[in-house]
Protein backbone atom coordinates (compact mmCIF):
# COMPACT_ATOMS: atom_id res chain seq x y z
CA UNK A 1 0.00 0.00 0.00
CA UNK A 2 1.26 3.43 -0.81
CA UNK A 3 2.34 5.32 2.27
CA UNK A 4 0.48 8.43 1.11
CA UNK A 5 -2.95 6.99 1.94
CA UNK A 6 -5.66 5.13 0.04
CA UNK A 7 -5.62 4.55 -3.71
CA UNK A 8 -7.62 7.21 -5.52
CA UNK A 9 -9.76 5.76 -8.31
CA UNK A 10 -12.07 7.85 -10.50
CA UNK A 11 -15.37 6.91 -12.11
CA UNK A 12 -18.10 8.50 -14.21
CA UNK A 13 -21.70 7.81 -13.07
CA UNK A 14 -22.54 5.00 -15.49
CA UNK A 15 -23.81 1.44 -14.99
CA UNK A 16 -20.48 0.10 -16.24
CA UNK A 17 -18.68 1.71 -13.30
CA UNK A 18 -20.17 -1.25 -11.37
CA UNK A 19 -16.90 -3.22 -11.02
CA UNK A 20 -15.26 -0.32 -9.14
CA UNK A 21 -18.31 0.43 -7.01
CA UNK A 22 -18.90 -3.26 -6.20
CA UNK A 23 -15.22 -3.84 -5.41
CA UNK A 24 -15.39 -0.99 -2.92
CA UNK A 25 -18.79 -1.67 -1.34
CA UNK A 26 -18.73 -5.49 -1.34
CA UNK A 27 -15.21 -5.73 0.04
CA UNK A 28 -13.27 -7.03 -2.99
CA UNK A 29 -10.67 -4.25 -2.64
CA UNK A 30 -10.45 -4.87 1.10
CA UNK A 31 -10.00 -8.63 0.54
CA UNK A 32 -6.88 -7.76 -1.49
CA UNK A 33 -5.64 -5.50 1.29
CA UNK A 34 -6.36 -2.38 -0.77
CA UNK A 35 -7.63 0.82 0.82
CA UNK A 36 -9.43 2.68 -1.95
CA UNK A 37 -11.17 6.01 -2.18
CA UNK A 38 -13.58 6.36 -5.12
CA UNK A 39 -13.94 9.76 -6.69
CA UNK A 40 -16.96 10.57 -8.87
CA UNK A 41 -15.88 12.81 -11.74
CA UNK A 42 -17.93 15.06 -14.00
CA UNK A 43 -16.17 14.58 -17.31
CA UNK A 44 -13.89 12.19 -19.17
CA UNK A 45 -11.46 15.02 -19.78
CA UNK A 46 -11.07 15.46 -16.03
CA UNK A 47 -10.56 11.71 -15.57
CA UNK A 48 -7.83 11.78 -18.22
CA UNK A 49 -6.11 14.84 -16.75
CA UNK A 50 -6.24 13.63 -13.15
CA UNK A 51 -4.80 10.22 -14.05
CA UNK A 52 -2.13 11.88 -16.21
CA UNK A 53 -1.19 14.28 -13.41
CA UNK A 54 -1.25 11.60 -10.71
CA UNK A 55 -4.19 13.16 -8.84
CA UNK A 56 -5.90 9.81 -9.45
CA UNK A 57 -4.02 6.49 -9.41
CA UNK A 58 -6.38 4.97 -11.97
CA UNK A 59 -9.88 5.25 -13.38
CA UNK A 60 -12.86 3.87 -15.22
CA UNK A 61 -12.02 4.93 -18.78
CA UNK A 62 -13.48 4.71 -22.25
CA UNK A 63 -11.27 2.17 -24.03
CA UNK A 64 -10.21 4.54 -26.86
CA UNK A 65 -9.23 7.22 -24.29
CA UNK A 66 -6.24 5.13 -23.25
CA UNK A 67 -5.07 5.12 -26.86
CA UNK A 68 -5.79 8.82 -27.47
CA UNK A 69 -3.94 9.86 -24.30
CA UNK A 70 -0.97 7.64 -25.13
CA UNK A 71 -0.77 9.06 -28.66
CA UNK A 72 -1.26 12.63 -27.45
CA UNK A 73 -4.43 13.13 -29.51
CA UNK A 74 -6.54 15.76 -27.80
CA UNK A 75 -4.12 16.21 -24.90
CA UNK A 76 -0.45 16.11 -24.08
CA UNK A 77 0.88 12.61 -24.69
CA UNK A 78 0.92 10.47 -21.55
CA UNK A 79 1.62 6.75 -21.79
CA UNK A 80 -1.42 4.93 -20.40
CA UNK A 81 -2.29 1.26 -20.31
CA UNK A 82 -5.37 -0.97 -20.06
CA UNK A 83 -4.54 -3.97 -17.84
CA UNK A 84 -8.19 -5.17 -17.56
CA UNK A 85 -11.36 -4.49 -19.55
CA UNK A 86 -14.39 -3.80 -17.36
CA UNK A 87 -17.34 -4.54 -19.65
CA UNK A 88 -18.89 -4.99 -23.04
CA UNK A 89 -22.23 -3.64 -24.20
CA UNK A 90 -24.41 -0.79 -22.94
CA UNK A 91 -23.80 1.76 -25.69
CA UNK A 92 -26.83 2.51 -27.84
CA UNK A 93 -28.20 5.12 -30.23
CA UNK A 94 -31.43 6.79 -29.16
CA UNK A 95 -33.37 9.07 -31.50
CA UNK A 96 -35.96 11.68 -30.62
CA UNK A 97 -39.51 10.31 -30.53
CA UNK A 98 -40.34 13.01 -33.08
CA UNK A 99 -38.23 11.13 -35.65
CA UNK A 100 -38.96 7.53 -34.85
CA UNK A 101 -42.74 7.45 -35.42
CA UNK A 102 -43.79 4.25 -37.18
CA UNK A 103 -41.57 2.15 -39.37
CA UNK A 104 -37.83 2.28 -39.94
CA UNK A 105 -36.30 5.01 -37.80
CA UNK A 106 -33.01 5.02 -39.75
CA UNK A 107 -34.73 5.46 -43.10
CA UNK A 108 -36.87 8.19 -41.55
CA UNK A 109 -33.76 9.99 -40.30
CA UNK A 110 -31.93 9.89 -43.63
CA UNK A 111 -35.05 11.05 -45.42
CA UNK A 112 -35.38 13.99 -43.05
CA UNK A 113 -31.69 14.91 -43.43
CA UNK A 114 -32.02 14.94 -47.22
CA UNK A 115 -35.23 16.98 -47.13
CA UNK A 116 -33.65 19.59 -44.85
CA UNK A 117 -30.68 19.82 -47.19
CA UNK A 118 -33.00 20.46 -50.15
CA UNK A 119 -34.79 23.13 -48.13
CA UNK A 120 -31.51 24.70 -47.05
CA UNK A 121 -32.33 24.14 -43.36
CA UNK A 122 -29.62 23.72 -40.74
CA UNK A 123 -28.32 20.16 -40.29
CA UNK A 124 -29.74 17.99 -37.50
CA UNK A 125 -27.64 17.81 -34.35
CA UNK A 126 -26.70 14.44 -32.88
CA UNK A 127 -24.55 13.85 -29.81
CA UNK A 128 -22.03 11.32 -28.57
CA UNK A 129 -20.51 11.35 -25.09
CA UNK A 130 -16.85 11.85 -25.96
CA UNK A 131 -14.80 12.09 -29.17
CA UNK A 132 -12.72 9.02 -28.26
CA UNK A 133 -15.44 6.51 -27.47
CA UNK A 134 -17.09 3.57 -29.16
CA UNK A 135 -20.25 5.66 -28.74
CA UNK A 136 -18.89 8.17 -31.23
CA UNK A 137 -17.75 5.41 -33.58
CA UNK A 138 -21.05 3.51 -33.31
CA UNK A 139 -23.07 6.63 -34.07
CA UNK A 140 -20.86 7.45 -37.07
CA UNK A 141 -20.89 3.86 -38.34
CA UNK A 142 -24.67 3.68 -38.07
CA UNK A 143 -25.10 7.00 -39.91
CA UNK A 144 -22.68 5.86 -42.63
CA UNK A 145 -24.78 2.70 -43.02
CA UNK A 146 -27.77 4.93 -43.78
CA UNK A 147 -25.78 6.58 -46.56
CA UNK A 148 -25.09 9.71 -44.50
CA UNK A 149 -21.71 11.36 -44.03
CA UNK A 150 -21.50 12.12 -40.29
CA UNK A 151 -19.06 14.99 -40.85
CA UNK A 152 -21.16 16.69 -43.51
CA UNK A 153 -24.81 15.67 -43.41
CA UNK A 154 -25.41 16.14 -39.68
CA UNK A 155 -23.82 18.17 -36.91
CA UNK A 156 -22.12 16.00 -34.29
CA UNK A 157 -21.55 17.32 -30.80
CA UNK A 158 -20.68 16.01 -27.36
CA UNK A 159 -23.15 16.08 -24.48
CA UNK A 160 -22.58 14.92 -20.88
CA UNK A 161 -24.61 11.68 -20.48
CA UNK A 162 -26.82 12.88 -17.60
CA UNK A 163 -28.04 15.75 -19.79
CA UNK A 164 -28.93 13.69 -22.89
CA UNK A 165 -32.59 13.03 -22.10
CA UNK A 166 -33.34 16.67 -21.24
CA UNK A 167 -31.66 18.01 -24.39
CA UNK A 168 -33.48 15.44 -26.51
CA UNK A 169 -36.77 16.51 -24.97
CA UNK A 170 -36.02 20.20 -25.58
CA UNK A 171 -35.14 19.51 -29.22
CA UNK A 172 -31.56 20.79 -28.81
CA UNK A 173 -30.34 17.41 -30.10
CA UNK A 174 -32.28 14.97 -32.26
CA UNK A 175 -30.46 11.86 -31.12
CA UNK A 176 -27.50 10.60 -29.13
CA UNK A 177 -25.29 7.62 -28.47
CA UNK A 178 -24.53 7.03 -24.79
CA UNK A 179 -24.00 4.23 -22.31
CA UNK A 180 -26.46 2.81 -19.79
CA UNK A 181 -28.61 3.94 -18.11
CA UNK A 182 -29.10 7.05 -20.23
CA UNK A 183 -30.88 5.45 -23.21
CA UNK A 184 -33.38 3.84 -20.85
CA UNK A 185 -33.77 7.16 -19.03
CA UNK A 186 -34.71 8.92 -22.30
CA UNK A 187 -37.14 6.14 -23.19
CA UNK A 188 -38.74 6.21 -19.75
CA UNK A 189 -39.17 9.99 -20.08
CA UNK A 190 -40.99 9.37 -23.35
CA UNK A 191 -38.62 11.63 -25.33
CA UNK A 192 -36.63 9.03 -27.27
CA UNK A 193 -36.50 5.56 -28.70
CA UNK A 194 -33.42 3.36 -28.86
CA UNK A 195 -32.79 2.35 -32.46
CA UNK A 196 -29.54 0.38 -32.34
CA UNK A 197 -27.38 -1.20 -29.64
CA UNK A 198 -23.66 -1.81 -29.84
CA UNK A 199 -24.19 -5.52 -29.18
CA UNK A 200 -26.15 -5.80 -32.45
CA UNK A 201 -23.33 -4.22 -34.46
CA UNK A 202 -20.07 -4.96 -32.65
CA UNK A 203 -20.75 -7.64 -30.00
CA UNK A 204 -17.03 -7.94 -29.23
CA UNK A 205 -16.22 -4.25 -28.84
CA UNK A 206 -14.62 -3.35 -25.50
CA UNK A 207 -16.41 -0.50 -23.76
CA UNK A 208 -14.72 0.61 -20.52
CA UNK A 209 -11.33 -0.40 -19.16
CA UNK A 210 -9.28 0.31 -16.08
CA UNK A 211 -6.85 3.01 -17.20
CA UNK A 212 -3.58 3.74 -15.37
CA UNK A 213 -0.39 5.40 -16.51
CA UNK A 214 2.44 3.20 -17.65
CA UNK A 215 4.58 4.97 -15.06
CA UNK A 216 2.21 4.18 -12.17
CA UNK A 217 1.91 0.53 -13.29
CA UNK A 218 5.68 0.15 -13.35
CA UNK A 219 6.04 1.78 -9.92
CA UNK A 220 3.25 -0.23 -8.24
CA UNK A 221 3.28 -3.74 -9.73
CA UNK A 222 1.94 -5.55 -6.64
CA UNK A 223 -0.86 -3.02 -6.06
CA UNK A 224 -1.84 -3.25 -9.72
CA UNK A 225 -2.10 -7.05 -9.50
CA UNK A 226 -4.37 -6.75 -6.46
CA UNK A 227 -6.44 -4.13 -8.26
CA UNK A 228 -6.91 -6.36 -11.32
CA UNK A 229 -7.96 -9.31 -9.14
CA UNK A 230 -10.40 -7.22 -7.11
CA UNK A 231 -12.01 -5.76 -10.25
CA UNK A 232 -12.29 -9.16 -11.95
CA UNK A 233 -13.98 -10.62 -8.86
CA UNK A 234 -16.26 -7.60 -8.54
CA UNK A 235 -17.20 -8.07 -12.23
CA UNK A 236 -18.10 -11.70 -11.55
CA UNK A 237 -20.23 -10.62 -8.59
CA UNK A 238 -21.96 -7.97 -10.72
CA UNK A 239 -22.66 -10.54 -13.45
CA UNK A 240 -24.34 -13.01 -11.07
CA UNK A 241 -28.12 -12.74 -11.57
CA UNK A 242 -28.66 -13.47 -7.86
CA UNK A 243 -26.96 -10.20 -7.01
CA UNK A 244 -28.96 -8.09 -9.45
CA UNK A 245 -31.45 -6.51 -6.98
CA UNK A 246 -28.64 -5.58 -4.58
CA UNK A 247 -26.51 -4.25 -7.45
CA UNK A 248 -29.34 -2.07 -8.77
CA UNK A 249 -29.95 -0.60 -5.32
CA UNK A 250 -26.22 -0.01 -4.82
CA UNK A 251 -25.68 1.75 -8.16
CA UNK A 252 -28.81 3.89 -7.69
CA UNK A 253 -27.42 5.47 -4.52
CA UNK A 254 -26.94 9.25 -4.66
CA UNK A 255 -23.15 9.06 -4.28
CA UNK A 256 -22.87 6.67 -7.24
CA UNK A 257 -25.28 7.00 -10.21
CA UNK A 258 -28.15 8.84 -8.54
CA UNK A 259 -30.50 7.47 -11.24
CA UNK A 260 -33.81 5.57 -11.33
CA UNK A 261 -33.44 1.87 -10.38
CA UNK A 262 -35.66 0.82 -13.34
CA UNK A 263 -33.32 2.50 -15.86
CA UNK A 264 -30.28 0.95 -14.16
CA UNK A 265 -31.85 -2.52 -14.28
CA UNK A 266 -32.66 -2.05 -17.99
CA UNK A 267 -29.05 -1.01 -18.63
CA UNK A 268 -27.61 -3.95 -16.69
CA UNK A 269 -29.47 -6.36 -18.97
CA UNK A 270 -27.34 -5.17 -21.91
CA UNK A 271 -23.93 -5.29 -20.24
CA UNK A 272 -21.48 -8.17 -19.74
CA UNK A 273 -19.07 -7.72 -16.84
CA UNK A 274 -17.47 -11.09 -16.57
CA UNK A 275 -15.77 -13.85 -18.47
CA UNK A 276 -12.84 -14.81 -20.65
CA UNK A 277 -14.39 -12.88 -23.55
CA UNK A 278 -14.82 -9.69 -21.51
CA UNK A 279 -12.04 -8.98 -19.02
CA UNK A 280 -8.69 -9.89 -20.63
CA UNK A 281 -7.50 -6.89 -22.65
CA UNK A 282 -6.96 -8.42 -26.09
CA UNK A 283 -4.61 -6.62 -28.45
CA UNK A 284 -6.83 -7.15 -31.47
CA UNK A 285 -9.35 -4.95 -29.65
CA UNK A 286 -6.84 -2.11 -29.38
CA UNK A 287 -5.95 -2.55 -33.05
CA UNK A 288 -9.63 -2.46 -33.96
CA UNK A 289 -10.16 0.72 -31.94
CA UNK A 290 -7.17 2.35 -33.65
CA UNK A 291 -8.74 1.46 -37.02
CA UNK A 292 -11.94 3.22 -35.91
CA UNK A 293 -9.93 6.28 -34.90
CA UNK A 294 -8.20 6.28 -38.29
CA UNK A 295 -11.49 5.75 -40.15
CA UNK A 296 -12.87 9.00 -38.75
CA UNK A 297 -9.70 11.02 -39.15
CA UNK A 298 -8.76 11.23 -35.45
CA UNK A 299 -5.33 9.74 -36.07
CA UNK A 300 -3.10 9.56 -39.11
CA UNK A 301 -0.79 6.68 -39.84
CA UNK A 302 0.32 4.94 -36.67
CA UNK A 303 2.13 1.68 -36.09
CA UNK A 304 -1.04 -0.10 -34.96
CA UNK A 305 0.63 -3.27 -33.67
CA UNK A 306 3.24 -1.35 -31.71
CA UNK A 307 0.70 0.97 -30.07
CA UNK A 308 -1.59 -1.97 -29.26
CA UNK A 309 1.27 -3.89 -27.72
CA UNK A 310 2.34 -1.03 -25.50
CA UNK A 311 -1.14 0.02 -24.31
CA UNK A 312 -3.18 -3.20 -24.06
CA UNK A 313 -1.57 -5.39 -21.42
CA UNK A 314 -2.95 -8.95 -21.30
CA UNK A 315 0.38 -9.93 -19.71
CA UNK A 316 -0.48 -7.96 -16.57
CA UNK A 317 -3.99 -9.45 -16.49
CA UNK A 318 -2.59 -12.96 -16.77
CA UNK A 319 0.07 -12.29 -14.16
CA UNK A 320 -2.64 -11.24 -11.71
CA UNK A 321 -5.18 -13.95 -12.42
CA UNK A 322 -3.28 -16.77 -14.08
CA UNK A 323 -3.74 -17.98 -17.64
Amino acid at each position, binding site marked *: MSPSGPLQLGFIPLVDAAPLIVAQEKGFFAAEGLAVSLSRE*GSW*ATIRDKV*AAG*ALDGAHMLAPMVLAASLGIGSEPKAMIAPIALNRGGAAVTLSSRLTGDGDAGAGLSHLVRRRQEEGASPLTLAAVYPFSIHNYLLRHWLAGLGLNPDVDVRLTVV*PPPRTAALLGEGVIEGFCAGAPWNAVAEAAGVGQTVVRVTEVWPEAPDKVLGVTEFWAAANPAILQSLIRALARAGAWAADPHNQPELVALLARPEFLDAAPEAIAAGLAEISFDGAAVNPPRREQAAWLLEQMARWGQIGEVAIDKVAERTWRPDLYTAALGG
Partner: protein
Amino acid sequence: MRVLIIDPDPARAALVAEGLDGIDPLKVRVAAVFDEIDVTAFQPDVVVVASESPDRDTLESLREASAVNPRPVVMFVDRSEPGLAEEAVRAGVAAYVVDGLSAARVRPVLEVAMSRFHLMHQLRADLAKAKADLASRKSVERAKALLMKERDLDEEAAYRLLRKLSMDTGRPLGAVAADLLAFAGVLKGGDPT
Protein backbone atom coordinates in the same frame (compact mmCIF):
# COMPACT_ATOMS: atom_id res chain seq x y z
CA MET B 1 -8.45 39.56 -24.02
CA ARG B 2 -11.89 37.99 -23.59
CA VAL B 3 -12.21 35.37 -20.84
CA LEU B 4 -15.18 33.08 -20.35
CA ILE B 5 -15.49 31.36 -16.96
CA ILE B 6 -17.70 28.26 -16.84
CA ASP B 7 -18.36 27.15 -13.29
CA PRO B 8 -21.48 25.59 -11.79
CA ASP B 9 -20.49 27.31 -8.51
CA PRO B 10 -21.57 30.96 -8.98
CA ALA B 11 -19.78 32.25 -5.88
CA ARG B 12 -16.46 30.83 -7.01
CA ALA B 13 -16.97 32.10 -10.57
CA ALA B 14 -17.56 35.60 -9.17
CA LEU B 15 -14.41 35.30 -7.09
CA VAL B 16 -12.36 34.38 -10.16
CA ALA B 17 -13.92 37.18 -12.21
CA GLU B 18 -13.10 39.67 -9.47
CA GLY B 19 -9.52 38.43 -9.33
CA LEU B 20 -9.11 38.87 -13.07
CA ASP B 21 -10.14 42.49 -12.77
CA GLY B 22 -6.56 43.64 -12.43
CA ILE B 23 -5.47 42.10 -15.74
CA ASP B 24 -6.03 44.43 -18.64
CA PRO B 25 -7.31 44.81 -21.24
CA LEU B 26 -9.83 42.23 -20.32
CA LYS B 27 -13.50 41.38 -20.71
CA VAL B 28 -14.85 38.64 -18.46
CA ARG B 29 -18.05 36.66 -18.72
CA VAL B 30 -19.35 34.06 -16.29
CA ALA B 31 -21.67 31.14 -17.10
CA ALA B 32 -22.89 28.13 -15.11
CA VAL B 33 -23.07 25.88 -18.17
CA PHE B 34 -21.55 25.87 -21.63
CA ASP B 35 -23.88 27.23 -24.29
CA GLU B 36 -22.45 27.11 -27.78
CA ILE B 37 -24.57 29.94 -29.18
CA ASP B 38 -23.66 32.14 -26.24
CA VAL B 39 -19.97 31.28 -26.58
CA THR B 40 -19.94 31.94 -30.31
CA ALA B 41 -21.45 35.36 -29.66
CA PHE B 42 -18.95 36.25 -26.94
CA GLN B 43 -15.90 34.99 -28.87
CA PRO B 44 -13.64 34.27 -25.90
CA ASP B 45 -9.87 34.02 -26.26
CA VAL B 46 -9.66 31.88 -23.15
CA VAL B 47 -12.22 29.58 -21.56
CA VAL B 48 -11.61 28.73 -17.90
CA VAL B 49 -13.64 25.71 -16.76
CA ALA B 50 -14.11 24.21 -13.33
CA SER B 51 -13.03 20.61 -13.76
CA GLU B 52 -16.14 19.41 -11.93
CA SER B 53 -18.20 20.82 -14.83
CA PRO B 54 -19.39 18.12 -17.24
CA ASP B 55 -19.11 20.69 -20.04
CA ARG B 56 -15.41 20.01 -20.48
CA ASP B 57 -16.13 17.12 -22.82
CA THR B 58 -18.32 19.32 -25.01
CA LEU B 59 -15.57 21.94 -25.17
CA GLU B 60 -13.04 19.30 -26.15
CA SER B 61 -15.27 18.08 -28.95
CA LEU B 62 -15.23 21.56 -30.48
CA ARG B 63 -11.50 21.28 -30.86
CA GLU B 64 -11.90 17.77 -32.21
CA ALA B 65 -14.24 19.07 -34.89
CA SER B 66 -12.01 22.05 -35.65
CA ALA B 67 -12.02 21.31 -39.37
CA VAL B 68 -15.64 22.41 -39.50
CA ASN B 69 -15.72 24.63 -36.42
CA PRO B 70 -14.63 28.20 -36.94
CA ARG B 71 -13.23 28.62 -33.45
CA PRO B 72 -10.68 25.96 -32.58
CA VAL B 73 -10.01 25.62 -28.90
CA VAL B 74 -6.80 24.19 -27.54
CA MET B 75 -6.09 23.10 -24.01
CA PHE B 76 -3.50 25.23 -22.38
CA VAL B 77 -0.35 23.41 -21.54
CA ASP B 78 2.86 25.34 -21.36
CA ARG B 79 5.57 22.86 -22.28
CA SER B 80 8.24 25.11 -20.82
CA GLU B 81 6.74 24.67 -17.35
CA PRO B 82 5.82 21.04 -16.91
CA GLY B 83 4.42 21.49 -13.40
CA LEU B 84 1.79 24.06 -14.33
CA ALA B 85 -0.73 21.71 -15.98
CA GLU B 86 -0.52 19.30 -13.02
CA GLU B 87 -0.98 22.16 -10.58
CA ALA B 88 -4.08 23.31 -12.47
CA VAL B 89 -5.51 19.78 -12.43
CA ARG B 90 -5.03 19.58 -8.68
CA ALA B 91 -6.61 23.00 -8.19
CA GLY B 92 -9.64 21.87 -10.21
CA VAL B 93 -9.19 24.31 -13.08
CA ALA B 94 -8.96 23.63 -16.80
CA ALA B 95 -8.32 26.29 -19.40
CA TYR B 96 -8.92 26.26 -23.14
CA VAL B 97 -7.28 28.74 -25.38
CA VAL B 98 -8.29 29.81 -28.85
CA ASP B 99 -5.49 29.12 -31.29
CA GLY B 100 -3.02 31.92 -31.65
CA LEU B 101 -3.06 33.32 -28.13
CA SER B 102 0.40 33.15 -26.59
CA ALA B 103 1.01 31.15 -23.42
CA ALA B 104 2.51 34.23 -21.77
CA ARG B 105 -0.84 36.02 -21.95
CA VAL B 106 -2.79 33.02 -20.67
CA ARG B 107 -0.58 32.25 -17.73
CA PRO B 108 -1.72 35.11 -15.46
CA VAL B 109 -5.36 34.22 -16.12
CA LEU B 110 -4.75 30.62 -15.15
CA GLU B 111 -2.80 31.66 -12.07
CA VAL B 112 -5.58 33.92 -10.87
CA ALA B 113 -8.14 31.17 -11.45
CA MET B 114 -6.03 28.65 -9.56
CA SER B 115 -5.42 30.93 -6.60
CA ARG B 116 -9.12 31.84 -6.38
CA PHE B 117 -10.14 28.18 -6.55
CA HIS B 118 -7.75 27.49 -3.66
CA LEU B 119 -9.11 30.49 -1.78
CA MET B 120 -12.71 29.32 -2.23
CA HIS B 121 -11.78 25.83 -1.11
CA GLN B 122 -10.13 27.30 2.00
CA LEU B 123 -13.12 29.54 2.73
CA ARG B 124 -15.52 26.61 2.45
CA ALA B 125 -13.30 24.44 4.67
CA ASP B 126 -13.08 27.23 7.27
CA LEU B 127 -16.83 27.68 7.22
CA ALA B 128 -17.43 23.96 7.69
CA LYS B 129 -14.96 23.90 10.57
CA ALA B 130 -16.54 26.95 12.19
CA LYS B 131 -19.96 25.29 12.01
CA ALA B 132 -18.60 22.08 13.50
CA ASP B 133 -16.82 24.02 16.27
CA LEU B 134 -19.99 25.88 17.12
CA ALA B 135 -22.03 22.67 17.24
CA SER B 136 -19.38 21.06 19.43
CA ARG B 137 -19.32 24.04 21.83
CA LYS B 138 -23.11 23.90 22.14
CA SER B 139 -22.96 20.16 22.95
CA VAL B 140 -20.32 20.77 25.61
CA GLU B 141 -22.38 23.54 27.20
CA ARG B 142 -25.51 21.39 27.30
CA ALA B 143 -23.65 18.30 28.57
CA LYS B 144 -22.08 20.43 31.28
CA ALA B 145 -25.49 21.75 32.34
CA LEU B 146 -26.84 18.21 32.41
CA LEU B 147 -24.00 16.96 34.62
CA MET B 148 -24.38 19.94 36.95
CA LYS B 149 -28.06 19.14 37.38
CA GLU B 150 -27.94 15.32 37.55
CA ARG B 151 -24.72 14.94 39.50
CA ASP B 152 -25.02 18.11 41.51
CA LEU B 153 -21.63 19.41 40.36
CA ASP B 154 -20.41 22.93 39.90
CA GLU B 155 -19.48 24.08 36.42
CA GLU B 156 -15.76 23.55 36.88
CA ALA B 157 -16.24 19.96 38.12
CA ALA B 158 -18.70 19.13 35.32
CA TYR B 159 -16.17 20.34 32.75
CA ARG B 160 -13.34 18.33 34.38
CA LEU B 161 -15.52 15.19 34.26
CA LEU B 162 -16.21 15.71 30.56
CA ARG B 163 -12.53 16.28 29.86
CA LYS B 164 -11.61 13.11 31.74
CA LEU B 165 -14.14 11.12 29.70
CA SER B 166 -12.64 12.61 26.55
CA MET B 167 -9.09 11.69 27.56
CA ASP B 168 -10.04 8.20 28.75
CA THR B 169 -11.79 7.37 25.48
CA GLY B 170 -9.40 9.28 23.21
CA ARG B 171 -12.30 11.08 21.54
CA PRO B 172 -12.92 14.80 21.05
CA LEU B 173 -14.67 16.68 23.83
CA GLY B 174 -17.56 17.63 21.53
CA ALA B 175 -18.14 13.98 20.56
CA VAL B 176 -18.14 12.82 24.19
CA ALA B 177 -20.60 15.58 25.08
CA ALA B 178 -22.89 14.65 22.18
CA ASP B 179 -22.83 10.97 23.26
CA LEU B 180 -23.65 11.91 26.84
CA LEU B 181 -26.65 13.97 25.69
CA ALA B 182 -27.83 11.13 23.45
CA PHE B 183 -27.57 8.56 26.27
CA ALA B 184 -29.35 10.87 28.67
CA GLY B 185 -32.11 11.18 26.10
CA VAL B 186 -32.43 7.38 25.84
CA LEU B 187 -32.48 6.95 29.63
CA LYS B 188 -35.28 9.48 29.84
CA GLY B 189 -37.16 7.51 27.17
CA GLY B 190 -36.55 10.05 24.43
CA ASP B 191 -35.45 9.47 20.87
CA PRO B 192 -31.63 9.45 20.68
CA THR B 193 -31.65 10.98 17.22
